[in-house]
């Protein structure tokens, strides 16, 4: 789950990381009010959506009066904002952040991510603030300074100093930076972050440092385990795909795609491979759907309904390799679902594994028009034909 910039800044502030004075507004009038409350002649109005590149998309505007703040908010709120990261449909802006301006001296980068190879978080800093870190990594990997964090011990002071010296900081700025580095590492661990970025981190003309923009992702499993109730309360369901959100509430993994063939598979690896083989055979998958290893009849039924709710689906491929999920349980789930909802499109089923004979028998005796397939290759071919 991702947080909005204004939410990230609330958490940063809790960890003592300096941010600019700001207020969230949900209406043009609130934006004007926010401008007056901040008391800074120059302020920035920033659209709050879960996508980067907002400046390029026109979602970040400088204002010099309450009227201007109101006008900018009027143009942003309730409209779709298209940025290089949103796709052509854009994202609806429901909130803006009105924030005091500041005198930018230098722009730096400070971020923390999981290093999968080390199995530990790594704190990263760069002199090239304001740019996507991936872009810096691709062009000039040596420009990114890194310090691995042993979560057992936390970030050590020498590691923060190494980054500060590497960035060429001095005096009070250096001291403020090392304190910030320690706070970011602590926040990453304590908040179960999957990503935490301050980009740019601004060194002001007076030598102070401040988080100008913030981005934060939280490990979904920590949320599922209810380890972060305060952060869970910040979830913005508007930023999530409604079908994916519904699927998650049933314990199913669903990702929307743009094709015509609905897929239902058990296990993530097999589900990805099923999408791949559909593409190889000349079709296009409408979704990724993993019903999980231990799905019960009810979950199978819900999964099946979810698939069919997508109007672009022309045919369905069910590919199950029964392990923990027994084929007869799955077959009964499909039969039950089809009895409850009218299904007008072809269904191709490939079953293998635990209790496969019982599963095939249930489908065979159900009277449903189901096309059965011998293996994955056969199933892909048949479902593409059926979708035509």
């Amino acid at each position: 789950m991702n947080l909005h910039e204004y939410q990230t800044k609330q958490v940063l502030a809790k960890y003592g990381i300096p941010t600019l004075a700001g207020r969230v507004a949900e209406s043009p009038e609130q934006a004007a009010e926010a401008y007056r409350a901040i008391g800074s002649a120059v302020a920035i109005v920033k659209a709050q959506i879960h996508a980067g590149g907002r400046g390029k998309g026109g979602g970040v505007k400088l204002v010099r009066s309450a009227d201007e703040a109101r006008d900018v908010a009027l143009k942003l709120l309730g409209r779709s904002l298209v940025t290089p990261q949103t796709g052509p449909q854009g994202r609806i802006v429901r909130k803006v952040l009105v924030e005091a301006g500041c005198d930018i001296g230098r722009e730096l980068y400070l971020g923390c991510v999981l290093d999968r190879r080390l199995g530990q978080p790594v704190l990263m800093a760069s002199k090239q603030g304001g740019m996507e870190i991936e872009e810096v990594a691709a062009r000039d990997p040596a420009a990114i300074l890194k310090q691995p964090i042993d979560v057992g011990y936390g970030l050590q002071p020498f590691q923060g100093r190494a980054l500060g010296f590497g960035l060429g900081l001095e005096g009070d700025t250096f001291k403020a930076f090392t304190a910030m580095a320690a706070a970011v590492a602590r926040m990453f661990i304590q908040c179960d972050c999957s990503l935490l970025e301050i980009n740019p981190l601004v060194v002001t003309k007076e030598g102070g440092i401040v988080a100008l923009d913030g981005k934060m992702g939280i490990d979904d499993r920590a949320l599922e385990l209810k380890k972060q109730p305060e952060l869970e309360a910040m979830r913005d369901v508007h930023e999530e795909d409604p079908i994916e959100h519904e699927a998650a509430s049933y314990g199913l993994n669903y990702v929307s795609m743009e094709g015509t063939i609905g897929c239902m598979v058990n296990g993530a690896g097999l589900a990805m491979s099923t999408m791949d083989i559909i593409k190889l055979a000349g079709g296009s998958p409408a979704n990724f759907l993993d019903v999980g290893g231990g799905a019960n009849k009810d979950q199978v039924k819900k999964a099946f309904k979810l698939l069919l709710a997508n109007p672009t689906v022309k045919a369905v491929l069910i590919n199950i390799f029964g392990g923990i999920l027994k084929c007869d349980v799955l077959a009964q789930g499909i039969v039950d679902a089809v009895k409850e909802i009218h299904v007008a499109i072809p269904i191709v089923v490939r079953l293998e594994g635990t209790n496969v004979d019982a599963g095939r028998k249930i489908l065979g005796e159900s009277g449903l028009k189901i096309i059965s397939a011998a293996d994955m290759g056969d199933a892909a071919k048949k479902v593409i034909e059926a979708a035509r």
Partner: protein
Amino acid sequence: MSILVDKNTRVIVQGITGSAGGFHAKAMMEYGTQVVGGVTPGKGGQTWEGKVPVFNSCDEAVRETGATASVCFVPGIAAADSVMEAAAAGIPLVVCITEGISIMDECRLRAFLRRTSTRMIGPNCPGIITPGQTKLGIMPGYIHKPGDIGVVSRSGTLTYEIVWQLSSLGLGQSTCVGIGGDPVQGTDFIDTLKLFASDPGTRAIVMAGEIGGTMEEEAAAYIRDHVGKPVVAFVGGQTAPPGKRMGHAGAIIQGGKGTAEEKYKALRAAGVTCVISPAEIGAAMKKVLEDKAA
């Protein structure tokens, strides 16, 4: 021959009195695995299913049974603690089946295990099986067949699919290892390839990767320099959209990195036989072995 586990492996099941632990402990015993004990804190002294002693701690279980491996079914909130307990008790191999451990707990676990000599397989994995001898995991035993092909995979059911293809073509397996789909893992491709490369009972290797991370690229470099046996590889997620987690916590293309395309490129350059269709992995292995024999 085999790697890591065989018929002499003495196994305890952590969480044996839970529904998943109990179900699979039974299936493991039916397959022939020596399940010598179970651990559920607070239920020590009971006898599970009338045959397996239950202990309060791993320490006690090891002392009483001489266990050499553990399979952990403990739920996500407490699983990292359970694996640490097994490692602290000196158990050399822990297979962690649990899905849904938080990433920060996995980091803590990884840091803890580095200071011990315990190897963890998983988490979020189907486990490990040496066909005809023992299985420590949740895979359906009957699809496997003893033989000399090593299988290593980041997936569960895709591994079953591959094994089924191999067995149908008469190609048995030495050992099959599911290393799991999480971003932080106890055992990676290189660890497993190293073991297969030096196992005289393994003639060739199937490796099934997927999008996310750079483990396949690192494995490719290792195969090029250190593995003299034929390797057939498949990478799942060729059609996965960027920025989306595809079921497995570790299966995500981030910042344009971790694509199937890049992984295939690295594997091909290392001389690995790459298969694009998941339906033809078994057939590709058969062909590689026939070509080698010819």
